[in-house]
């Protein structure tokens, strides 16, 4: 009697090892932390972050929250009262500082030879005439008009910074409370990074707690539907759960925080990790149906003998594809690549050793009749059709695929990289609405800060700032440019009467500038200056506020700034959160390309090794190129942007999608080596292995389909696109590759099969 396989002989050791590793990896789970700070996704030493740090070390950090009010007329008494009351509550709250609203923004003006400094709204108007006078006054105030209140007076904002030491959650709860204490009919929307982070956090927690159990439930349903046997559900499921625990436990163990895309890790495990166990159960059920008198151990020995290498190789290609993510520049992608690869490796080891071990302890189930009678499901009908079409008219199949490829692929020219963080949220989310309000009616949501160095009180420096302001304001994207020069000009309007040569301009002497500043100190708040100029007046900060819905608009503003800087003696640095965001977009493209190159190269090498043919490497890559290009093209046509989630598509698609082609090559090779004629070999392969590939693809698809209920738009899009991409890989493996094989009859398929490299189904 032949010896049992290793996993059965030492089954208790393997079961114990699996349990112990899982339990140990469950311990760090309690230390899991969610980090939704998108800026933390890039390394700290990139130039954009260093510049931002330099600027913030002088002028303080800004992380403002903005509250937008929408109503038919902002100057209505009840609306102004609400804004006033909220302004005062925010000023008194210990969590906030630097409150900017209609009631704190200055109205500096000259009247009858007197400089008057008042808040924009000093008294709430009581009559129509007073209201219109206030409207007129606001229209003439460059510090308020189109900045704090919109041009059509339908929108107004309150902007403030959180004090250090408060979590986003605490801040947002406080704001909710303040809004409840100050009710009104105006619609209120929030914006700003603390709000975005808090919203992502809420949605990420919801996704993690909802999607994972949902995915597992769907998987249970699918497994039961496929096997009609409890062990057919529990064994693959236990592999999935253990792989999830290992992958998620590794994150805190390696010091990684859970990012916005961390929810993809368990979903990946659900979609991929059960595949190998499924193959083993399928094989066991097939043997049980055919040879009902064989013992469980005998059947497992046989199943593992056939499946060990295919499982090993398909897992290896998936791991290699996923590892492509570790070449990404974005930290969450790197981290996800590493822990997912570890999770799949663990799932592979569990499938090879733990699955046979545990199954050998279980009683044989009733033979499933479905294995003995030919099935006529929709899938079977499609496979027969595919086999016929492919063998009768391979050129037409190739032509149709080429046509599809060119049509969808052309969309790549329309593909944009996402650099607007708020697009993580659905279109109807308050954050998206408020961003639109800011872009359409107020100064925009992007800010680039420019650092000027020199004697800031020197009119030469101030006039240079004025030149920047003038040129930048000519751009339609730019909403406002604020600097110490703006303030000096505002003071000049209050110090001098209209028509006076000094009115609305930078004075000619340094002393006059110094006296203007001293004068402002008497009536204004020195804190007004803190964000614009440093204590000893050697460094100044210019804030350029603008809107940019896409990278082209952004580049117009940045290019103007660059050309102004190159001709400037004093402007030394540009910085801003939006520049870090833009770098993130660049990193997405770069990281995506690195992952793609790595995955392709690794897959070609692997296929070369498996089939001992470089041609196999290139042919096996055809479905991947087809799928990746078409998916990016489709994104272009549909207006879906390349973002942190979709930039991982190609790695995942390549890792999973290549398996289908490997299975196909194997079976084809086996059939051909058995002397079957080429066309018949294709038909037979599709009917047998094709079915396995299709079922496998279906199980992966339903795993990813749970992403449709994610609260985050980018994860929904990822779910849709990965399914599209894998469907293309599947169709290529079932129709395009056999057609090409029929036409060129590659020699690597006709060599004798590599020992033990047998097909799965």
């Amino acid at each position, binding site marked *: 009697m032949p010896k049992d396989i290793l996993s059965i002989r030492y089954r208790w050791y393997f079961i114990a090892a699996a349990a112990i590793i899982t339990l140990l990896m469950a311990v760090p789970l309690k230390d899991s932390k969610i980090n939704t700070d998108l800026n933390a996704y890039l390394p700290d030493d990139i130039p954009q972050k260093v510049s931002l740090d330099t600027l913030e070390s002088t002028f303080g950090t800004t992380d403002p929250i903005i509250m937008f009010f929408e109503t038919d007329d902002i100057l209505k008494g009840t609306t102004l009262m609400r804004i006033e009351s909220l302004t*005062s509550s925010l*000023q*008194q*709250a*210990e969590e906030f500082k630097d409150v900017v609203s209609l009631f704190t923004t200055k109205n500096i003006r000259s009247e009858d*030879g*007197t*400089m*008057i*400094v*008042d808040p924009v709204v000093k008294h709430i108007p009581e009559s129509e005439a007073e209201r219109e006078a206030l409207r007129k006054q606001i229209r003439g105030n460059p510090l308020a008009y189109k900045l704090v209140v919109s041009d059509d007076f339908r929108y107004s904002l309150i902007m403030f910074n959180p004090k250090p030491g408060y979590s986003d959650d605490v801040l947002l709860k406080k704001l909710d409370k303040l809004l409840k204490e100050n009710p009104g009919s105006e619609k209120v929307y929030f914006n700003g990074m603390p709000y975005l982070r808090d919203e992502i956090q809420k949605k990420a927690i919801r996704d993690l707690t909802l999607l994972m159990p949902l995915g597992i439930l769907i998987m249970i349903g699918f497994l039961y539907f496929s096997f009609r046997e409890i062990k057919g559900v529990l064994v693959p499921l236990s592999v999935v759960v253990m792989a999830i625990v290992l992958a998620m436990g590794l994150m805190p163990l390696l010091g990684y925080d859970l990012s916005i895309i961390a929810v993809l890790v368990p979903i990946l495990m659900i979609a991929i990790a059960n595949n190998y166990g499924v193959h083993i159960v399928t094989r066991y059920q097939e043997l049980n149906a055919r040879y009902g008198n064989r013992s469980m151990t005998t059947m497992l020995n046989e199943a593992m003998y056939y499946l060990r290498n295919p499982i090993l190789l398909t897992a290896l290609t998936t791991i290699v594809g996923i590892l492509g993510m570790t070449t990404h520049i974005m930290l969450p992608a790197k981290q996800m690549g590493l822990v997912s690869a570890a999770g799949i490796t663990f799932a592979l080891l569990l499938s090879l050793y733990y699955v046979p071990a545990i199954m050998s302890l279980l009683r044989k189930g009733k033979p499933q009749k479905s294995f003995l009678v030919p099935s006529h499901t929709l899938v079977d009908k499609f496979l027969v059709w595919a086999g016929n079409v492919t063998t009768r008219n391979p050129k037409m199949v190739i032509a149709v695929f080429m046509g599809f490829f060119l049509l969808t692929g052309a969309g790549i020219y329309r593909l944009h990289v996402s650099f607007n963080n708020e697009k993580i949220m659905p279109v109807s989310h308050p954050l998206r609405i408020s961003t639109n309000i800011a872009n359409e009616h107020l100064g925009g949501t992007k800010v680039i800060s420019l650092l000027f160095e020199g004697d800031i*009180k020197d009119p030469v420096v101030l006039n240079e700032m004025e030149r920047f302001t003038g040129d930048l304001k000519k751009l339609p994207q730019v909403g406002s440019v604020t600097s110490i020069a703006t303030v000096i000009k505002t003071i000049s309007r*209050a*110090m*001098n009467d209209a028509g006076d040569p*000094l009115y609305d301009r930078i*004075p000619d*002497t*340094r*002393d*006059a500038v*110094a*006296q*203007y500043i*001293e*004068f402002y*100190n*008497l*009536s*204004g*708040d*020195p804190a007004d200056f803190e964000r614009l100029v440093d*204590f*000893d007046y050697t460094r100044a900060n210019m804030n350029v506020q603008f809107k940019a819905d896409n990278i082209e608009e952004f580049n117009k503003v940045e290019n103007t700034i660059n050309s102004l800087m190159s001709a400037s003696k004093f402007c030394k640095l540009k910085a801003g959160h939006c520049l870090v965001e833009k770098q993130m977009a660049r990193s997405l493209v770069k990281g995506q390309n690195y992952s793609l190159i790595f995955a392709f190269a690794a897959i070609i090498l692997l296929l070369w090794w498996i089939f001992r043919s470089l041609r196999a490497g290139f042919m096996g890559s055809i479905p991947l190129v087809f799928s990746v290009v078409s998916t990016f093209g489709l994104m272009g046509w549909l207006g879906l942007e390349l973002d942190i989630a979709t930039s991982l598509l190609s790695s995942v698609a390549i890792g999973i999608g290549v398996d289908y082609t490997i299975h196909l090559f194997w079976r084809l090779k086996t059939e051909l080596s058995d002397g079957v004629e080429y066309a018949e070999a294709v038909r037979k392969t599709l009917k047998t292995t094709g079915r396995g590939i299709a079922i496998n693809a279906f199980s992966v698809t339903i795993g990813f389909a749970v992403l449709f209920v994610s609260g985050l738009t980018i994860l929904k899009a990822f779910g849709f696109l990965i399914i599209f991409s894998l469907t293309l890989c599947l169709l290529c493996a079932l129709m395009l590759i056999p057609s090409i094989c029929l036409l060129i009859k590659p020699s690597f398929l006709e060599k004798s099969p590599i020992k033990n490299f047998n097909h799965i189904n």
Partner: protein
Amino acid sequence: MKLKNILLPALSILAFTGLRAQDARTIADKASDVINPGSMEMTSTLKIYDNKGNVRVREVSNAMAKFSGTTKTLFKFLSPPDVKGTTILIYDYENKDDDMWIYMPSLRKTRRIVATEKGKSFMGSEFSNADMSKPTMSDFTYTLKGSETLDGRDCWKLESRCADAGVEDANGYSRKVAWIEKSTDLTWKIEFYDHADKLLKVETFGDYRKQAGGKYFAFKLNMQNVQNGRKSEIVINKYQAGSVLKESAFSATTLGQ
């Protein structure tokens, strides 16, 4: 235990609390009176430190006199050179908002300023305009918070709470607690609390000198903002009780002369 051993302390506590409210206002009035200089002339150095220890120094000459119930104050910058000659004139009326003018030598121009917020900074320092002028006693409610020894001096702890939100806004704080020496009525320290009742600033006084007429004047003032880490100090270099300046010197039209 004898009855008086219980009753005496109890009675004294009752007596003390009963007296507290009226005592508090009296103490506040006395503390205000003892330093009220009426008119004076002085030069001082104002040092403004940021939270990194950088310093800005201003030298200012200052004259104050009362004419027909209105306190008129002149500030003239002596240094740094770029603001030298800049002069500020303030009329502090009993029953209405202050009037303020500024003269800028570089423009040879006088401008009137209307600014209602006394809580704003004084010359960009941590002192506020309100700190620099005599408070209106009726704007506050006074409570005695007991006694405490400060640097060896037996002091009353007196709380002055802003009477309403308007007073709070005008002064930039919700309440202040002053340490007033019992024997001299001199204030040595004041803590200011913000609208959320968190400690905002701590002002300390030093080098009190008795002036002709029996009033005292602090030659050293220090204001530490505990929330932003900045501080400012004023050192009086020269002081003279009473002013020789005529009322015409406190006129907006003669500021540049």
